[in-house]
């Protein structure tokens, strides 16, 4: 079922001419150098931050995700790709228990966050979501709140007491800095969050998720509704953020997966077909279906 590629990203160096040519067709514009990626991967020993074990997700009786085993390493970007309706978003939404907010939806199997089962007895979905942030396809700033209050929104609902005004201001600034939005909005923190552009709104939502310092950030097609320039900004941001947190990103855009992820998982019809270091998956897919998909034969 789970087809872990034995090929490590390190072993890709040096790549064969054939591989390079093939990747050039699939990944026309690599934003980041493979060399940089290889160095980074070499310097830290991967630990698993989030793990799905025999995870299935249902809408009523229909299984949208079937028996998925997937480990997401700490401080890496894992991309989940696959054709529309393959269950990749549902899988992502099972990771922070958002799936169950839809009526009739349920999950079997387990998800471990740093070894703790998030679907365990006595575990609160609310608290899980505070540790696993999420950003959606369309920007979702809260329209009644200012930019500052949007970023601080998650802080208000955390257990314990609300940080002081000054602490909040610091956290907001830090989160906006990390989201690369500080310079653009620092003079209008008190203005409405819906007055800024779509791309800025999306980065605002990322800042909002960052402010609560989650262990994991889930991105559900975060650039699907953005223009190319905003998309590039978000991608750069994701690339920078992975040095500090585990990121799982669903995307329908293979080039994007290739540009920003360390590992890529391919899903089809609710099942996980193959997961491998991104370069390996795109250059030497082990499964015929993966190859068919990345070479554009369907999807």
């Amino acid at each position: 079922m789970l087809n872990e590629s034995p090929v490590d990203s390190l072993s890709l160096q040096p790549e064969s001419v054939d591989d390079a040519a093939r990747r050039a067709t699939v990944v026309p514009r690599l934003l980041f150098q493979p060399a940089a990626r290889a160095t980074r991967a070499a310097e830290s020993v991967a630990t698993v931050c989030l793990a799905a074990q025999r995870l299935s997700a249902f809408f009523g009786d229909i299984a949208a995700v079937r028996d998925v085993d997937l480990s997401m390493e700490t401080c890496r970007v894992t991309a989940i790709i696959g054709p529309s309706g393959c269950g990749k978003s549902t899988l992502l939404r099972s990771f922070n228990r958002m799936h169950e907010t839809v009526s009739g939806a349920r999950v079997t199997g387990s998800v471990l966050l740093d070894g703790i089962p998030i679907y365990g007895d006595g575990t609160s979905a609310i608290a899980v979501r505070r540790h696993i942030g999420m950003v959606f396809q369309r920007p979702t700033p809260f329209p009644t709140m200012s930019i500052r209050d949007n970023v601080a929104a998650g802080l208000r609902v955390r257990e314990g007491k609300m940080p002081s005004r000054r602490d909040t201001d610091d956290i907001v600034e830090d989160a906006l800095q990390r989201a690369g939005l500080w310079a653009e909005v620092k003079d209008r923190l008190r203005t409405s969050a819906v007055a800024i552009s779509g791309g800025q709104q999306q980065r605002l939502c990322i800042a909002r998720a960052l402010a609560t310092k989650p262990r994991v950030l889930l991105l559900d097609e975060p650039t699907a509704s953005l223009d190319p320039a905003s998309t590039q900004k978000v991608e750069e941001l994701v690339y920078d953020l992975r040095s500090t947190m585990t990121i799982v990103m669903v995307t329908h855009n293979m080039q994007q997966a290739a540009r920003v992820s360390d590992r890529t998982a391919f899903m089809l019809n609710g099942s996980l077909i193959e997961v491998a270091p991104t370069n390996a998956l795109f250059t030497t897919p082990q499964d015929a279906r993966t190859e068919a998909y990345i070479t554009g034969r369907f999807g």
Partner: protein
Amino acid sequence: MVSLTYIAAALATLPLIFILVHLVRAGAASINPAFFMQMPKPVGESGGGMANAIVGTLILISIAATVGLPIGIGAGLYLAEHKGKRLANTVRFLSDVLNGLPSIVMGIFAWQFLVRPAGHFSALAGGIALGVMMIPLVTRTTEEMIRIVPNSLREAALALGYQRWRTSLSIILRTALPGIVTGALVAVARVAGETAPLLFTAFGNQFWSAAIQRPIAALPLQIFTYAISPYDAWHSQAWAGALVLIGIVLVISIAARLATRSRFGSAVD
């Protein structure tokens, strides 16, 4: 045939214009500061005002809002969040039934339930009767306004770790608030002009009273009493009272309309 519809439109708008023009003509003469400041004069004396009735109406509206808004908004939240459930469908249907309930039936119900056991008329009974009439209106607009709020906002809040109640109150309800305020204003405007539920509850009072356990004056009641009286001086007071009442109602209605129009485009993207 097309011109027939133009005629229909003209005929349909005519009564309103006709009523408003006459109201202003007949009522404006008696509108002066004294009308708002003074108490009603006994028969035979000219002048006087409806200060007690204006204050009474405001008190009754406040009681009504205290009763009607929490129940209406709470029920609206329930309906919006449990759509499709059997109880929600039943409540929605019964809310429509309550909305169609003749106001006089509400009046005798409030009398039977609140006045008869207490043994006396009271502002409280009148206000509660009006408040119950507000419930279906507020419930309906609350539900509709909450449904307009995109589900993505709810998801975003839940994903941030908001509990369901916090999501509903500080994100969803807060976003829908301008629309709900509009609905509440419309409901207030409607019950402000109601007379029938007050006939046997608030009852009316020719004297100054702001006590909620005593009978209280109200503009619509005062207009009714004066209109069916045989005195010309009272008739012109009735017209002035009607002008003030309709002024209150129209100002609230138009404010409600403007509030919706100007705030929606930007609030909900």
